[in-house]
């Protein structure tokens, strides 16, 4: 019985993931096992769940006798992390495969929760399809790889063509500097005071979204960044940091954005994507590439006219310097936990879940930017969404977060600074000062250096 199952498993796996992967599983004897897969399924974020259901069926068909137990965790992002950290902490509860955000993966690597995948990836022919930047997203300080990226994202400006045209701005719009963005917003406001000129996320309720879509989209367009990888020091205070805060202050106090109280509502993301943009009440939105997945026929708020109503423009650098435009990228990976008792099988699951076809269908459904070269070159993927080409085109100018173990706390300190500035509780200078102090507390004074002044 067992041997028959194994033979079948072998045959199936050979079809699905290639012979190399199979040989390792058959040696460990895999009949009658259960693999646990933990991931987040929250609100309208249903695409990962759909993807896992599909891969489960494929994997079980290819590996008779092995059961995939899906563990969708139905909570917000912070609670999801609490839960998987607790689960991964002990061998009796650890899932085998876990869905990890690249922004937190380093702290989980440091906690010893994840298993290095190098030995599996070295025999996985598909791995060569992943570009180095993508591989780096899940690389630990020890140089080993702890996750396979599912996709990535970029960020840019969405604009309402109608509202901008009415304000006298020529189409297609591509601002060259921050000043151009502000000028367009002011023109919209002057033309129609009932419209919200632009949206930039800022403040704690939106969490990492504020840090990345809001602050880092400004900061990484200045001469400064958050972290200098050459000197291995975190940067503060810096001119770039205070200029970014000043930009937010001017935008918010100048009435170019949502009122701060609305911005600090935890539901602001839903309001922007679900109401303001579809109702043409917002002219410019600095947001992520995935936002359009809200409006597809299977999305949370179907809006067929979105692609003709909205245009996209790359975010310019502060004064048009550098590469002229910029973006920020994040993304999620699938990883194998350190306490998994079936690491070989788990690695095979990851490889199956992110093979070409599965990566492609997931990236299309979830509005992700493909990381695999073969998927990126695939016409079905390219034509799946009118904005795909645009957002993929931002990859050459994009930046990645310094996703070290301390990063989540640094991100929070940034949100605190933004919130203090947009509510008028602090001046940009004071907010930067307290950010610098917090940063020293988080990473240690010796790891902080001033940027340009």
């Amino acid at each position, binding site marked *: 019985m067992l041997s028959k199952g194994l033979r079948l498993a072998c045959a199936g796996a050979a079809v699905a993931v290639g012979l190399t992967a199979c040989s390792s599983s058959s040696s460990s004897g895999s009949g009658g096992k259960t693999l646990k897969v933990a991931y987040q399924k929250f609100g309208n974020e249903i695409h990962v769940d759909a993807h896992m259901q599909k891969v489960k069926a494929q994997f079980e068909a290819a590996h008779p006798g092995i059961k995939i137990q899906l563990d969708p965790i139905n909570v917000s992002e*912070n*609670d999801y*992390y*609490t839960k998987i*950290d*607790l689960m991964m*902490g002990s061998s009796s509860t650890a899932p085998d495969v876990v869905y990890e955000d690249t922004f*937190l993966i380093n*702290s*989980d690597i*440091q*906690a*010893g*929760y994840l298993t290095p995948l190098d030995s599996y990836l070295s025999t996985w022919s598909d791995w060569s399809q992943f570009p180095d930047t993508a591989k780096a997203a899940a690389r630990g300080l020890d140089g080993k790889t702890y996750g396979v990226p599912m996709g990535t994202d970029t960020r840019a400006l969405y604009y309402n063509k109608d509202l901008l045209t009415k304000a006298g701005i020529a189409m297609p719009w591509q601002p060259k500097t921050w000043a151009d963005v502000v000028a367009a917003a002011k023109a919209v406001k002057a033309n129609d005071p009932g419209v919200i000129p632009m949206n930039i996320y800022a*403040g*704690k*309720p939106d969490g990492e979204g504020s840090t990345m879509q809001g602050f880092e989209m400004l900061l990484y367009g200045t001469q400064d960044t958050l972290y200098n990888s050459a000197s291995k020091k975190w940067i503060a205070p810096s001119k770039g940091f205070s200029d970014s805060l000043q930009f937010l202050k001017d935008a918010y106090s100048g009435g170019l954005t949502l*009122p*701060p*109280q*609305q911005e*600090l*509502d*935890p539901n602001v993301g839903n309001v922007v994507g679900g109401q303001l943009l579809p109702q043409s009440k917002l002219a410019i939105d600095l947001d992520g590439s995935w936002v359009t997945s809200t409006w597809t026929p299977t999305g949370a708020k179907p809006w067929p006219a979105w692609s003709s109503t909205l245009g996209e423009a790359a975010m310019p650098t502060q004064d048009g310097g550098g590469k002229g435009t910029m973006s920020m990228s994040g993304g999620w990976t699938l990883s194998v936990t350190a306490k998994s008792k079936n690491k070989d099988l788990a690695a095979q699951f990851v490889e199956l879940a992110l093979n070409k076809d599965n990566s492609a269908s997931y990236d299309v459904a979830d509005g992700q930017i493909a990381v695999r070269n073969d998927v990126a070159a695939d016409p079905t993927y390219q034509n799946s969404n009118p904005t795909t080409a645009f957002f993929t085109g931002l990859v050459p100018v994009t930046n990645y977060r310094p996703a070290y*173990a*301390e990063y*989540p*706390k640094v991100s*929070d300190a940034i949100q*605190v600074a933004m*919130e*203090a500035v947009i*509510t008028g*509780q602090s001046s940009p200078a004071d907010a930067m000062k307290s950010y610098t102090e917090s940063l020293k507390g988080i990473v240690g004074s010796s790891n902080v250096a001033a940027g340009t002044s």
Partner: protein
Amino acid sequence: MRFRAAIAGEDLAAAAIGGPTSPRRGRAARLTRATRQLPLAPALIMLILFFLGPVLWSIYSSFTNAALTGDGAANPQWVGLDNFRRLFSDPNVTNGIWLTVVFVLGSAVIGQNLLGLAIALLMRGRNRWLRGTVGAIVVSAWVLPEVVSAFIWYAFLGQDGTLNQVTKALGIGSQDWLYSSPMLAVIIANTWRGTAFSMLVYNAALADVPLDVQEAAELDGASGWRRLWSVTLPLIRSAIVTNLMLITLQTLSVFTLIYVMTAGGPGFASSTLPVLMYQQAFKFSEVGYGTAISLLLLAIGAVFSFVYVRVLKPEA
């Protein structure tokens, strides 16, 4: 007249009585005494295993850098008093202590307690229909799950919420209450949610105040307020102490309501200690520092309890 003040720990009730048999000397008596306490055992075991154990562990971990992820998860280190030093130099904690005290005084001591007493007093002698209806409305606010109450208040006080619709209709103008006065918002919401408890306690206590006592005072010409102050309130004194203590302890640890309504913001304007504790322990996964904050919360609870027992100690 005798006061029963069970909960305040002042055991004036039923003096200890030996039990079925008269006390014997030696082992047999000790055995009997031990057997009598036996029914306590299951409760003790549960409390020690699931309560005392974790609490002691929490106290221990407040002296470490234990964390859910990162270095502190792999090798938690003993950091001595670091967490406590950080606690007292952290302006958000100092602010949090203040907000917690305001929250307890505002929503428990003043809000729930006084409003509950007022409703109970007003209900006396009203017709049954009015009593029943108002009572049911107040109690329904208490029975609803905390998350649901939080949603309701989030919607009620929001920019487009019911309250602003009313104020706009009255021509007072609207504001975003959760943003402009977050503490007031959560205090009102918690008062709404908890008043029923105090009302029920005082209803029961007042039902035992004999009407003739009041009438006697009335015949003496005592005014309504004086009657309340010098006759009624002293009679329900132990109910007041108990109620204050219970609602204070419950209010101190209110988390979900505040978290859903304001998430502690804007800035840190409504970050009471439980909200800060949650953020430290679970958002930043710093379990050690988070538990240090919760020990602080316990200390505040102790201070309140001490004050109640001392100041309002029932006279024998």
